[in-house]
C-alpha cells in the first residue's frame, strides 16, 4: 500500500494545503514572520497578496494579532520555526488563543533535529509537549508532505478552534496516497502485525514501516500506527493495539519527556498497561550536523526502532513468565 514516491519536505504540504484553502475560503488569511518562503507561505502570498500580512520577526505579536483576527471572523494561519511558533509565544498561545478558544492555526516549521546544521537553537524538540498541555489545543503531526497538505486543510475544515501543525524542513519520504482519508483524532494502522505495535508520528512513521519490514525477515510481526493527531489522542485504537499486541514502541522526533510517547503512556497506564519503549530525544539538546548523521547519533532510525521492538517483545515475554 505504501511505496516511496519521492523525497519531499513536509513544509511543502503545508504551503499547498494553505493555497488550497485560500482558493476555497475567503476568510483564510496568512500572517508572515519574515521567513515566509522557508515555511512555504510564499505561494499563498503570491496568489493572495490581499490576504497575506507581514508582521516581521515578532512572534508574540503575531499570535495576538491572529487571535484578534479570529475574534473578528477570520481564520488566520501563522507559521515560523517551531521553536518560535510554539515556544517563544507560549503565553500568548495559552491566553490569547487557547483561553479565548479562537480559530487560530499555527504552523510549527523546521521541527526536530533533522533541521541539521543550524544546531540546537533551531531544533524544536519540545513543541509537542508544550502545545499538547494547553486546553482547547489540537496538535497535528502528519507523516509526510501529502498528509501535511491534508492536515492543513483539516485544521480549517474539521476543527473550530486552535490547531498546532508540526512539519519539517528536510526532504523526507513521501509515501501516502493523496486520496487517503484524514480525520483529526483518528490514528491510522499502516501495517498489521501481532507481536508489538510501533506508534510513530511525523516522518518517523516511514522509519517505523522500514523497521517492521526488517523485523519481518526475522519472523517478527509488527503493527505500525501513524499517530498524526497527538491531541485529541485516539484512545480506542491505542488500547486495542495494547490488548492485541501486548507491547508498544513509540517513535517521534521530539523529547521523550512530555512528547507523543508520554501521551501514549498516559492512555495505556490508565487503561491497559503493557511494556513500552520510547524512541526520541533523551533529555538533551541537539547539535549541528547532517540530518542523517543526527538521526543516527540520536538513535531515531529504523534500526533503532527495530532494536526497541526486540527489546519490548522480550520484556513482554519476561513479564508473562513472571505472572
Amino acid at each position: 500500500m505504501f511505496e516511496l514516491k519521492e523525497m519531499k519536505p513536509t513544509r511543502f504540504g503545508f504551503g499547498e494545503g494553505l493555497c488550497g484553502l485560500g482558493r476555497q475560503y475567503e476568510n483564510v488569511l496568512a500572517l508572515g514572520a519574515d521567513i515566509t518562503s522557508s515555511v512555504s507561505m510564499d505561494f499563498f502570498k503570491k496568489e493572495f497578496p490581499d490576504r497575506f500580512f507581514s508582521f516581521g520577526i515578532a512572534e508574540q505579536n503575531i499570535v495576538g494579532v491572529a487571535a484578534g483576527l479570529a475574534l473578528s471572523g477570520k481564520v488566520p494561519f501563522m507559521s515560523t520555526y517551531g521553536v518560535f511558533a510554539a515556544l517563544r509565544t507560549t503565553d500568548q498561545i495559552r491566553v490569547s488563543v487557547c483561553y479565548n478558544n479562537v480559530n487560530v492555526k499555527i504552523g510549527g516549521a523546521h521541527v526536530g533535529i533533522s533541521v541539521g546544521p543550524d544546531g540546537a537553537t533551531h531544533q524544536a524538540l519540545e513543541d509537542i509537549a508544550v502545545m499538547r498541555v494547553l486546553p482547547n489545543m489540537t496538535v497535528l503531526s502528519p507523516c509526510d508532505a501529502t498528509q501535511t497538505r491534508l492536515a492543513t486543510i483539516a485544521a480549517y475544515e474539521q476543527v473550530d478552534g486552535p490547531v498546532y501543525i508540526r512539519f519539517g524542513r528536510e526532504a523526507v519520504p513521501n509515501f501516502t496516497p493523496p486520496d487517503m482519508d484524514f480525520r483529526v483524532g483518528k490514528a491510522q494502522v499502516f501495517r498489521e502485525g501481532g507481536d508489538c505495535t510501533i506508534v510513530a508520528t511525523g516522518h518517523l512513521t516511514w522509519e517505523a514501516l522500514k523497521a517492521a519490514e526488517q523485523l519481518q525477515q526475522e519472523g517478527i510481526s509488527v503493527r505500525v500506527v501513524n499517530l498524526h493527531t497527538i491531541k485529541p489522542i485516539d484512545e480506542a485504537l491505542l488500547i486495542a493495539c495494547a490488548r492485541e499486541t501486548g507491547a508498544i514502541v513509540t517513535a517521534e522526533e521530539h523529547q521523550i519527556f512530555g512528547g507523543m510517547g508520554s501521551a501514549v503512556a498516559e492512555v495505556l497506564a490508565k487503561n491497559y498497561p503493557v511494556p513500552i519503549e520510547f524512541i526520541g530525544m533523551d533529555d538533551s539538546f541537539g547539535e549541528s550536523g547532517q540530518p542523517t548523521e543526527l538521526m543516527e547519533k540520536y538513535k531515531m532510525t529504523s534500526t533503532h526502532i527495530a532494536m526497541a521492538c526486540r527489546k519490548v517483545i522480550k520484556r513482554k515475554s519476561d513479564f508473562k513468565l513472571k505472572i
Partner: protein
Amino acid sequence: MESEELENKARKIRIDVIRSLAEAGSGHLGGSLGLADIFTALYFFLLKHDPKNPVWPDRDRLILSIGHVAPVYYASLAHAGYFPVEELLTLRKLGSRLQGHPGRDHGLPGIELSAGSLGQGLSVAVGMALAGKIDQKNYLVCSVHGDGELQEGSIWEAAMSASHHKLDNLIAIVDRNKVQIDGPTSDVMEIEPLADKWKSFGWQVFQCNGNSTPDFISTFQEARKTFGKPSVIIAKTQMGKGILEIEGDYRWHGKAPSKEEAKKFIALLDRQGFSQEN
C-alpha cells in the same frame, strides 16, 4: 449624556467597584477607581455599542489589556445594561460569570477578550483593527493599557505593527497613573519619555487628564479623526481617584477594601453625590 450626568454615573460605578471588591475580598481597587471616568466616557458617550446585541458586527470594540481592572469593566457593562448590576456581587466567586480577570468562556455578555496576562491586548486590538480594514467596516478598536504594562516588550512589537499597517481605526489608551505594584513606575522601570516613544513608533500621540470626562471626551474625539496611523491617548489619572485618602497610593494597586473601609468609602462617594445633585 451631559457632563454632570456622566460624573454622577462615574460616581455610581465607583461605588459598585467598591461594593463588588469588598464582597469578593480580593482584587484591584486602585486602578479600577482611577479608570472610572474613562470607562464612563467610553460606555456612556463615546463607543458605538448595543447592550441588547453584544455581538453586533458594527460595534466599536473595547479591548481591556489590563484584565486586573476587571471591576471597573464589569461595573460599566452592568450599568450600561449588559447584565444585572446585582450580579457584580458575585465577582471572583466560584461559578460566577465575573472572573478575577475577564474570561469569555464564562459567558458574561460584553466581554470582547479573555485577558490578564499583561502585554497581549494591543496585539489582539491590532488584529481586530486589521479585520475591520479588510472588511471595510467603520468600527473603532479601542484598547486600554496600564503604564506599567508598557514595560512588556510585546507591547512595542504590537505598536510597530499597528503603524506599519496604518491602522487609524485603533486608539490605545494608556492609564498613566505613574504607579505599579512595587511602587512608582519611575523607580520600578522608567518608561519616559513616553510620548516620544509612541511618536517614534509612528503613532499620533494625545495627552489628557483621564479623570476629567470632558477633557477625555474631547481628546478621544480628536484622536478618532486621525488619518493613516493609530492614535494613543496618554491619560493622566490617579490611582484610587475619588477617595481622597487613598488617591495616588500604590499600595492600593492590588488590594480590596475591607467591609468597614468599603462602608466609609461609599459614604464619602454618597456625600459627593449629594453635593453634586444639590
